[in-house]
Structures are given as structure tokens and as C-alpha cells.
């Protein structure tokens, strides 16, 4: 059931928030041994918030589509009185204050069922966490759910909750959306407050929703965006006349055959719906990725400097990245930020000729837990670099980008829809029309 359907049933008194919440908690507890999607399950908080939502409905108070809807937060969104870990020993604590997103979701009447598992510090894409165990893919528990918002992706895709919040620094919402088979939106940089969320890369972090439909992601954005209720959810959108950019470089290289076929099929469907496909050469995504890696390494290591005496408390993959960032030249960081502005100006030209750009979200199907490399004929590629290859650059540019599931007979496949700055609502509308 989607948020849209549940919201209608709640208002028709066909179901109560308490019933939805009990069912959500039942699924979470039932799936926890198989998927390990949660670090903390907040049964008591959930039932209390559900009661409040039902009481409000009874009194005629309607706070909008999220009232009474069960959801989850990635465990780096601070919640007063509820354990928050960031997926690491370093930050495992019970905060005395809430992050802004949780405040907004409480005000919207949504029901918090728990805090989801993630890659340590959100610094990786496997969600194979050395402290809290591996989060597993709901379609095949031997495979990763992607990350770093792996628990949120698994919870949303498996229907444990109606939506889950994630964070995205180099693809960490869109990757688990693609690998688990749900919708994930990385909004325009700065559009959703990061206050009270544990940071990773200060100039790359974005907070956003993971849902079952693009329309539902719009309902969540209406509640959490810095400018509330400004129409992120557009009903009945038509693709007719929409100019869809189809990259002829980079985004079509080293793509698994199943993904190539699903992507080609999506383009055919868009064309059949009277969208205009515009072949495009996209300015240097490989270079933008390199700049993004330089920026991320430096920003994370700067944040973690304070904890450099606690090396043994970090997982081996994370400490290796922190070490790299500490050895990076300061001039490289400065120049990477300067290059970012150049790339932004180059991409701004694209929005004069297209409305959105479509690419696969990930070039590979969800890898097995523990898999280190992917093979391309004679060449092999680090799974982490392959997984982030098509998404990382969009964080560098700060653009809104959505991943929606494509039809697949095997494992989930994601379609990435990239838009111009602040065109989040348009990206969501195109996503709704293509679902």
C-alpha cells in the first residue's frame, strides 16, 4: 500500500493509524532476522504517535497526507531520547535534541517505527556494517541492499514502512533505491535541512525520502522541505513534449546487459508517451567524479580528525578512507571546489536544451555481500567505484536526482532522472509518469 492509498483509507475510517502501525511493526520484527534493516525499533514511540494521529483524526484535525503514516529514519537523523549511532561506535549515543526533519515529520503527524541500519558513518555503499551487522537485500539476502542508506532502502522496498528517510553524499539514497527496488530522491542541495543529522561530507550531503512511488516521495517532500507545501506531488502529469536528454557518453559505458535492456525499454516507453528524446554529450562526468572523490575524502577526514586516536573503533574500509583523506594535499581540495563551479556552469547549458536527463542509476545488478570487484571483459572495477559511477557526480553538481525502479525479471534495476536546480517537483512528476 502506498502513502496515497493509506491516507485515503485513514480519512475514510477504513483503517486506523494504530492498525497501520501495528502491521508495520509486525513486518519489521518479522523481517529483522532476515534483513537486519533496523538498528533500533521504536515500538512504544510508534504506538504513542499513532494514538495521537488517531485522536487528531477523531477531533477533525488533519495535518496532511503523512498523518498516521508509519516510517523510519536512517540512524544518523538525531532523535531526542532515542539511540542514534551513525552506524559507528564513535557516535553511538542518545541525543538530547531532534533533527529538523524529525521535528517536521512529527508536526506532519507521521509515526516513527525505528532507526535503520547504514554503512558505518554513511561512508560506503555496502551497508555491511562491522558493528551492527550486514543489512541484506530484500530480493536476495545474499546480496547487498546498497548504501549507505541500506536499511532505509530495504525497509521501504519490503513494505515494512510507507517511507524511510535516507542521506545521499555520493549516491547513498539512489543506490539502495536501485538495488532494493524502491523510489529514492536526492533533492537539490540545501532543499532539505541537514540540521541535527550527522554529517559526512559537508558540501555534498543531501537528505531525502525513499518510498514506493514518486508521488509518495512528493508527499514527504511537501512535509520536510525548507519551503513546505509547495507542490512537490503533481497528479496526472503527462510526458508529452518533455525534452529528455539521453547521454551518448559515459553513462552508456560499462553497463550490465540487463540494465542496458531495461533502460532502452524505458526510453521507448517515454517516446511512446510523446516525450522528445534528445541525444546529449554530457560535460566530463569522469572528471566530476574525480573532483567529488577528492572533496569527500578531505571533508570526511577533517570531520573525523578529532577521533583519530580511536582508530580501532572504525571498520577497516572506513579507516583506510580516513587515512587517505588525511594525506590528500590541501591544494587538491581547494582546486576540486573550484573545478566544481566550472562543471556547474557547463551543466547549466544543458538545461537550455533538455528538461531532464535519464541514465541508469547503477551500472551493475546488486553485488553479493563481500564481493569486491566486478568484471568487464578483461578489465575489473572496484564494486564501490562501479556502484557510485553514475550517481556521485550529481552530488558534486547539487542537482535533484530521482531513482525509480524499472521492470526487471531478475534483480531490481534503477532509472536515474536528473533535473535542473530546484526542479525537484518536475523530476518527481517525470518519475510518476514513468513508473
Amino acid at each position, binding site marked *: 500500500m502506498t502513502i496515497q492509498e493509506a491516507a485515503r483509507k485513514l480519512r475514510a475510517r477504513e483503517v486506523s493509524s494504530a492498525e497501520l502501525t501495528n502491521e508495520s511493526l509486525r513486518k519489521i520484527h518479522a523481517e529483522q532476522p532476515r534483513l537486519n534493516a533496523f538498528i533500533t525499533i521504536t515500538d512504544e514511540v510508534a504506538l504513542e504517535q499513532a494514538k495521537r494521529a488517531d485522536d487528531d483524526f477523531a477531533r477533525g484535525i488533519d495535518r496532511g497526507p503523512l498523518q498516521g503514516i508509519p516510517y523510519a529514519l536512517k540512524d544518523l537523523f538525531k532523535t531526542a531520547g532515542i539511540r542514534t549511532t551513525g552506524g559507528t561506535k564513535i557516535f553511538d549515543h542518545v541525543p538530547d535534541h531532534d533533527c529538523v526533519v524529525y521535528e517536521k515529520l512529527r508536526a506532519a503527524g507521521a509515526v516513527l517505527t525505528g532507526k535503520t541500519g547504514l554503512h558505518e558513518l554513511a561512508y560506503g555503499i555496502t551497508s555491511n556494517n562491522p558493528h551492527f551487522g550486514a543489512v541484506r537485500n530484500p530480493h536476495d539476502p545474499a546480496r547487498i541492499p546498497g548504501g549507505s542508506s541500506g536499511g532505509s532502502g530495504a525497509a521501504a522496498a519490503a513494505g515494512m514502512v510507507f517511507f524511510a528517510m535516507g542521506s545521499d553524499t555520493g549516491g547513498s539514497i539512489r543506490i539502495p533505491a536501485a538495488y532494493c527496488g524502491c523510489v529514492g530522491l536526492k533533492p537539490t*542541495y540545501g532543499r532539505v535541512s541537514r540540521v541535527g543529522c550527522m554529517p559526512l561530507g559537508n558540501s555534498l550531503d543531501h537528505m531525502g525520502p525513499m518510498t514506493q512511488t514518486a508521488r509518495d516521495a512528493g508527499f514527504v517532500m511537501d512535509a520536510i522541505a525548507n519551503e513546505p507545501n509547495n507542490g512537490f506531488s503533481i497528479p496526472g502529469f503527462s510526458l508529452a513534449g518533455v525534452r529528455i536528454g539521453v547521454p551518448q557518453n559515459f553513462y552508456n559505458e560499462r553497463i550490465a546487459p540487463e540494465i542496458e535492456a531495461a533502460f532502452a525499454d524505458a526510453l521507448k516507453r517515454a517516446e511512446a508517451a510523446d516525450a522528445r528524446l534528445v541525444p546529449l554529450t554530457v560535460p566530463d562526468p569522469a572528471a566530476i567524479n574525480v573532483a567529488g572523490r577528492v572533496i569527500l575524502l578531505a571533508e570526511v577526514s577533517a570531520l573525523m580528525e578529532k577521533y*583519530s586516536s580511536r582508530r580501532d573503533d572504525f571498520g577497516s574500509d572506513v579507516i583506510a578512507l580516513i*587515512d*587517505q583523506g*588525511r594525506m*590528500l594535499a590541501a591544494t587538491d581540495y581547494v*582546486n576540486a*571546489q573550484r*573545478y566544481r563551479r566550472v562543471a*556547474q556552469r557547463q551543466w547549466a547549458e544543458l538545461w537550455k536544451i533538455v528538461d531532464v536527463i535519464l541514465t541508469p542509476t547503477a551500472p551493475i545488478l546488486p553485488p553479493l555481500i563481500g564481493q569486491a570487484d566486478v568484471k568487464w571483459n578483461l578489465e575489473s572495477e572496484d564494486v564501490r567505484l562501479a556502484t557510485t559511477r553514475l550517481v556521485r557526480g550529481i552530488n558534486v553538481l547539487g542537482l535533484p536526482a530521482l531513482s525509480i525502479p524499472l521492470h526487471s525479471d531478475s534483480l531490481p534495476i534503477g532509472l536515474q532522472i536528473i533535473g535542473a536546480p530546484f526542479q525537484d517537483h518536475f523530476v518527481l512528476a517525470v518519475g510518476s509518469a514513468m513508473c
Partner: protein
Amino acid sequence: MTDSTNIPADAPARIMPSLEALEAAFRPLAEQLTVEDESALTFEI
């Protein structure tokens, strides 16, 4: 200034190949920049 004394002796050997590859990939980009290009250190959109 970074105190790198607590980075283990084997760390550079372990991490430098990928860091050097990244720096090598980045160098041509940095060389493209002119002094007229943006000097801002914060990101805005």
C-alpha cells in the same frame, strides 16, 4: 596541522596506490583552472 603520527607505518603503502591514482586523475583538471576561475571554498547552488 594534521598529526599523522598515529597513522600506522604500513598505512601509506596500503592506501597510497589508490590515492596516487586519484591525484594523478585530478592533476589535469586542476591544471585546466585559471586564476579567473572561482575561488570560493563553499558550495552553493
